[in-house]
Every structure is written in C-alpha cells, then in structure tokens.
C-alpha cells in the first residue's frame, strides 16, 4: 500500500490517497518554505478563539515540527485550505480531532517509527519509541484502557515540542524530574495505582531524588550526565528496573563498584543489589560510617556474631587507619610548609596515599577484607615514608631553633658584657675626671 514517497498521510490508508487527490500535494509536510507561508485556515479561525485551541496555535510557534515545515493537518488531518469549519473538519478529509490516548501515540508513531521518513530529518534518531512505549507501564496500562497514563504529549507537550537538547525542552536533563513528577508527585493523580506487591505507589520519588547526590551533581555541578528519572527507568519504556537489574543499572556509570560487587559473595544475597545499601531515589554521598558494625553502619543489618561481622570490622578498621594516617601526614606537611620547609615531593607522595584511600573505598565493594587490607597496606607504606620525611624535616626545624637558641646565648652574652663594659668605662672615667661637682 505504501508508496516510496512515504508521506505521513499515506500511512493512514485510502483516506490519505483521497486527500492527495484532493490537492494535498500543495500543503504537504515537505520542507518547502512555500508550504509554511501558505495561508492556514486552521490558524485563521483558532487564533481568534479562546482556550486550548488558541493555546495550541501560540505554542506551535516554537515547535520543532513547525520549524521543519509541518502544520496542523499533518497530525490532525482535515483541510487547512477550507474556508469554513465544517469543510475543514470534514472526517472525509482525514480530520481526526483532538488526539487523545492511543490516537496521540499513533499520530506521533506515524512518522517517528518510520525509518525511511526519519532519515530525512534526523538520521541517527531512534525509531523505536512507540515499541518501547508499548513495553512501559504507561503503554501497557494504556492498552488496558487506562486513559490517565502518560503518552507522548504528556512529557513532550502537544504543541510546543522542542528538541531534547534544547534547554527549554520539558525533557531536557534538568527538566526531566519535574516533568515526571507532574504526575508521579501528585497524590490525587496517583491514587489507586499500586506496586507489583499491591502496596500503594508512593509519590515521594521527586522529594527523595532532590536529596540525592545525583540531583546535586545535576543542579549544582551542572553535570548533565548525572542520572535523572529516565536514566534508570528508561525513557519511553519507563518502568522500575527490576530487582535483579539494579547492579547493571547503577553499573552503567559506576562500573568499578558494580564489577566488584557482582564478583562478591553478596551478589547472590542482595535482592536489590546496590539499593540494599545506597537506596534508590535518595542516593546519599557514601561515607566510611556505612561500613562496619558500629553506629550508622549497614553491615549490622544482617550480620551479628559471624565471619561477616569480623570482616566488616576489619575492613572498617583498615580504612580508618589509612584515613587517619593520611590526615596526620597532611597536617604534618602543612605545618612543615608553614614553617617554610620544602615538602613538594612529600605532597606528591601524599596524593598517592590519598589515591590508595580512594582505591580501598572502591575495594570495599568486593566485600573481601583481604583485598581491602592489601590496598590499605600499600597506602600505609606510602604514609610511613612520608612520616620519615616529615621526621627529617622536623629535625631540620629543630636544628633551626637550636641554632637560634645558640645565637641568642651569644647575643645575650655580648649584651651583658657590653653593659658591664660600659659600667667599667664609666667608673674609670669618673675616677679620671674626679668626683662630680656638687
């Protein structure tokens, strides 16, 4: 049925063919400037009206599709050349009206799922959004007749669609969380939805996400590669990643940790992978206190009086010892530097010790006390060398002070001797000059 021209309207079947015959050629989607400058009957009426239709006209002014030469009828059908509403909205001319629910998805997919069509506009853009959408919780519920779920326009907007890389786009990385939250943080909207286990679906994800390191990285460090909702849930195929997938999902960025974790004994035990310790939406900056059996530690959740507890304690002790050692060396070097000593080489070594501390914290994810202790040992060897260098510098400082003390003694000796000498001279002079006049 399809012709090689791949016009969107053709996909709608015989109706479109009819449209074409009716003179659709002239105002088709093609990127001819003439197409956009031709008078558009839809706009003529709708810009004078009020409400949603008028808003659609205004919003469409900045829409990326308008920039590419598309007009109202490319999605809504009908006849823009007609002069009265009835002729324009003639179902015989393909008029589809407002595109709600599945109709909206279908309208977008007409072009966006067509590889040959999309190649002319954005060759590298994916064309599987509709297929992905069908696998999402949104898509599956829509298929089941739920009209409250998100469709394309819910996230991308209906008429003011912008490219994803446009900072004003509702799906630009910094805007994604707010866009998802427009439904997911709305308790009324989400009422009645449940998780797989039947518990009510929470609406606290955005609030939790805003406390996370990921949100901080995105908004404070302006790191656009920091994850937002879609990076873990998928964008068009959005749904919870699934328990067994957590390590993989987090591992897309945190490779080192994921690899070590998957090779560890805990891979089989942790149902929710990384989330067991780090939470999902409210991922906090990691700290050494999470490790071990002490206050604030997480190992204590499962381990009591067993080998695991011993390993956790020893890992924590090892890391603490290296951290303390690095801090001590750092203080020492700062003190020496402030005293005017040369510590460039030692500062270089201190960096290496800090690297080992970082490495040992990564090694914790292998949950192997032996491996952690090994890395820590390497770091401690570096700080030991630093302490020796520090001792040498301290000795030099002591030498300076001793030298100063020695010169002080000499100077004081001279001062005292001089004063005595002056007294002596004065007495001699007094003897020579005779007693002073009364």
């Amino acid at each position: 049925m399809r012709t090689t021209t791949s016009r969107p309207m053709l996909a709608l079947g015989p109706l479109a063919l009819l449209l074409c015959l009716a003179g659709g050629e002239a105002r088709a989607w093609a990127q001819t400037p003439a197409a956009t400058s031709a008078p558009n009957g839809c706009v003529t009426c709708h810009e004078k009206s009020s409400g949603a239709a008028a808003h659609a006209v205004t919003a469409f002014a900045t829409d990326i599709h308008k920039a590419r030469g598309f007009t109202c009828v490319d999605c809504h059908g009908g006849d823009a050349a007609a002069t009265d509403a009835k002729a324009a909205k003639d179902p015989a001319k393909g008029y589809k009206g407002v595109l709600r629910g599945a109709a909206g998805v279908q309208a977008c997919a007409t072009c966006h799922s067509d590889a040959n069509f999309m190649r002319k506009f954005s060759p590298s853009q994916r064309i599987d959004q509709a297929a992905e959408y069908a696998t999402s919780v949104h898509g599956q519920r829509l298929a089941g007749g739920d009209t409250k779920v998100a469709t394309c326009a819910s996230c991308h907007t209906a008429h003011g669609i912008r490219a994803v890389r446009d900072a004003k786009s509702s799906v630009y990385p910094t805007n994604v969380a707010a866009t998802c939250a427009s439904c997911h943080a709305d308790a009324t909207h989400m009422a009645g939805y449940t998780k797989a286990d039947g518990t009510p679906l929470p609406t606290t994800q955005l609030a939790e996400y805003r406390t996370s390191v990921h949100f901080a990285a995105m908004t404070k460090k302006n790191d656009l590669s920091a994850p937002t909702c879609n990076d873990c849930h998928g964008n068009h195929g959005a749904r919870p990643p699934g328990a067994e997938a957590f390590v993989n999902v987090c591992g897309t960025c945190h490779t080192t940790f994921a690899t070590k974790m998957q090779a560890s004994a805990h891979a089989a035990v942790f149902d929710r992978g990384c989330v067991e310790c780090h939470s999902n939406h409210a991922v906090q900056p990691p700290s050494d206190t999470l490790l071990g059996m002490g206050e604030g530690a997480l190992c204590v959740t499962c381990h009591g009086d067993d080998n695991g507890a011993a390993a956790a304690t020893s890992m924590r002790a090892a890391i603490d010892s290296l951290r303390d050692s690095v801090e001590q060396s750092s203080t020492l070097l700062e003190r020496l530097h402030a005293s005017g000593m040369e510590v460039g080489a030692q500062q270089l070594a201190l960096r290496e010790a800090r690297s080992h501390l970082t490495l040992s914290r990564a090694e914790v994810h292998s949950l192997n006390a032996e491996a952690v202790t090994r890395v820590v040992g390497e770091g401690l060897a570096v700080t030991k060398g630093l302490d020796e260098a520090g001792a040498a510098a301290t000795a030099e400082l002591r030498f300076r002070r001793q030298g100063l003390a020695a010169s002080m003694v000499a100077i004081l000796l001279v001062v005292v001797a001089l004063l005595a000498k002056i007294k002596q001279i004065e007495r001699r002079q007094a003897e020579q000059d005779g007693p002073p006049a009364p």
Partner: protein
Amino acid sequence: MEPGDGVVNRPPVRRRTLLDWLLGLGLGSTGLAVFHPVRRFLVPPRGGEAETASVVAGSLSELPPNSGKVFPFGSRPAIVVRTPDGELRAFSAVCTHLDCTVQYKADTSQMWCACHNGIYDLSGANVSGPPPRPLETFVVNVRGEAGREEVVVSRS
C-alpha cells in the same frame, strides 16, 4: 676609690681581662652566627636552578609510540604521552573526579584512572566513567641533540 694603690688596683685588672675575654667570645660567636649562614647562603644549592613553569619529564627514548610516563610537576603529578602516531602530549595526571593519578593504557590508547575506571582520550577529554572535566593540558617541547632529546613540559 683611691687611685695609685697597687693592692687596690689588682682585682679590677683581673676583672677587666675576664670581661674583655667574655666580650671577645660573645662578639666572636655572634660574628660566626652571622658569617656561617651568609657563607652557606652564597654556595649555590645542588640540583640546579629555580624550578620555573617548565620541567624535564624525561628523555625522548623513554617514550616509544603508544606509551606514557607519569612525572612530578611541582607538587602534583603530570603525564606525558606519546600517541601511536608518535605525537607528544602532556596533561595533569590528577583525575578530575577524586584526584587519583591517571596512567596510560596502551591497549586502548587512552588514559585511565584506576580508582573508578575514569577514561580520558589522548586529547585529555573525559570520555567515560565518573570524571566530570577534561584533564588540564600542558605544553610539550623537545630539546637537545638528536638521540638524546629531552621532553620538556611547561604550563603554557
């Protein structure tokens, strides 16, 4: 005091000599305390002149194509790499993520940080892993006669 009496005069003479001796000792030792640092100051220290904005990273022969070398640049590490094409480039070796030291990875011709698997390409750009920024770039020059060239890295 009565002048002229030899018996009365003797003690002052002895005291004077002791005082002069002490004064001489004090002056001599303070003189030494000044002279010694001055003399040591004038002797040029070993290990060459003041470190400026450039540093010798090593000899060119140490760097075959597709290799890298980490060297101290002031109090921070830097890395000089020779691309598979034989071009020399230098960067700060301090990973922009958590300050670990990066190293050259010959199998992929990239710079790699062991701590969290951060990867930089040979122009210093962060291409994978957690590093948020590219590595700081330095300027590399080669000097010296053929066969014994030195690789000199400077800030700008």
